[in-house]
């Protein structure tokens, strides 16, 4: 997420600037980038606007205290983790039984920068590996990545719920990565 302020400065560069001059304004710019996303996460889990607003403020305070204390390589993932933990704590405190779906943490790492030939080989492996996926994952991955269908369209055409569609796509992609890694090692 970006807004118009200082878009040319990366999140980690903002933290570096804070560490070098001690000016909290850099952290302010960083946190403002994620206000809406953090609020969305808190709304998803807490399901109450006032509690979500309060949670975002608490997350901001924690971030202002913690950022810069130790190296944080992926501030976006770190903020997400803080938000999830805060919401979980709130939910536990309320003794509300809400099952948080198992979330795959932010894949902050960028895929290895393969050469064009490597990429082409990966695409061949992807094509070959697709039949190895479970049928539900295979159909969702095909409809999403190859036919560029929306979650809603896939849900309508397959009868899966939106949550199931997302889950099949995420798990399918993860399984494809595992299969390809295996093939890469064997090659």
């Amino acid at each position, binding site marked *: 997420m970006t807004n118009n302020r200082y878009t040319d400065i990366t999140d980690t560069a903002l933290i570096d600037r804070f560490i070098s001059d001690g000016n909290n*304004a850099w952290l302010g710019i960083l946190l403002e980038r994620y206000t*809406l*996303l953090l609020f969305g996460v808190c709304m998803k889990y807490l399901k109450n606007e006032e509690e979500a607003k309060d949670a975002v403020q608490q997350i901001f305070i924690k971030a202002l205290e913690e950022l810069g204390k130790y190296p944080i390589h992926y501030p976006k*993932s770190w903020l*997400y983790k803080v938000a999830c933990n805060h919401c979980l704590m709130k939910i536990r405190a309320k003794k509300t039984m809400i099952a948080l779906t198992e*979330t795959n943490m932010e894949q902050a790492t960028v895929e290895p920068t393969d050469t064009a030939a490597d990429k082409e080989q990966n695409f061949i492996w992807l094509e070959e590996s697709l039949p190895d996926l479970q049928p539900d994952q295979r159909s969702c991955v095909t409809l999403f990545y190859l036919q560029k269908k929306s979650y809603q369209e896939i849900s309508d055409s397959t009868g899966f719920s939106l949550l199931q569609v997302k889950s099949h796509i995420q798990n399918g992609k993860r399984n494809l990565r595992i299969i390809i890694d295996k093939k890469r090692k064997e090659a």
Partner: protein
Amino acid sequence: MSEWKNILPSNSLITEEQLMQYLSGEASEELRFEIEKQMADSAFLDDAIDGLQQYDSLAALHSLKSQLNNQLKKTLAPKLKRRKRKVFQDQYWLIYAIVGILLLCIMGYLVIRLYGNK
């Protein structure tokens, strides 16, 4: 085969305006695909959009965001003031020290002149 490039993670950042377009259902096919592709890669974005989709009004979301950012600015402000005050306090000590040294020099000069004349 090249259609598989869609499965590669995207490095483009979604702007707030684009997110609002997606939430209001006004995103183009291309933008909708890009956002949903990033949702598949990012639990953060996925969870956030799930939460934000509970709102029908984008104006309400804008207002909430402004409130939270204003609160953040207030949280940051006292710390800045404290920093400024601390800087001033340090400068006062410096001024006191300089004045003290100058006074000592003047007194020393006067004493030397007084005894020198005698």
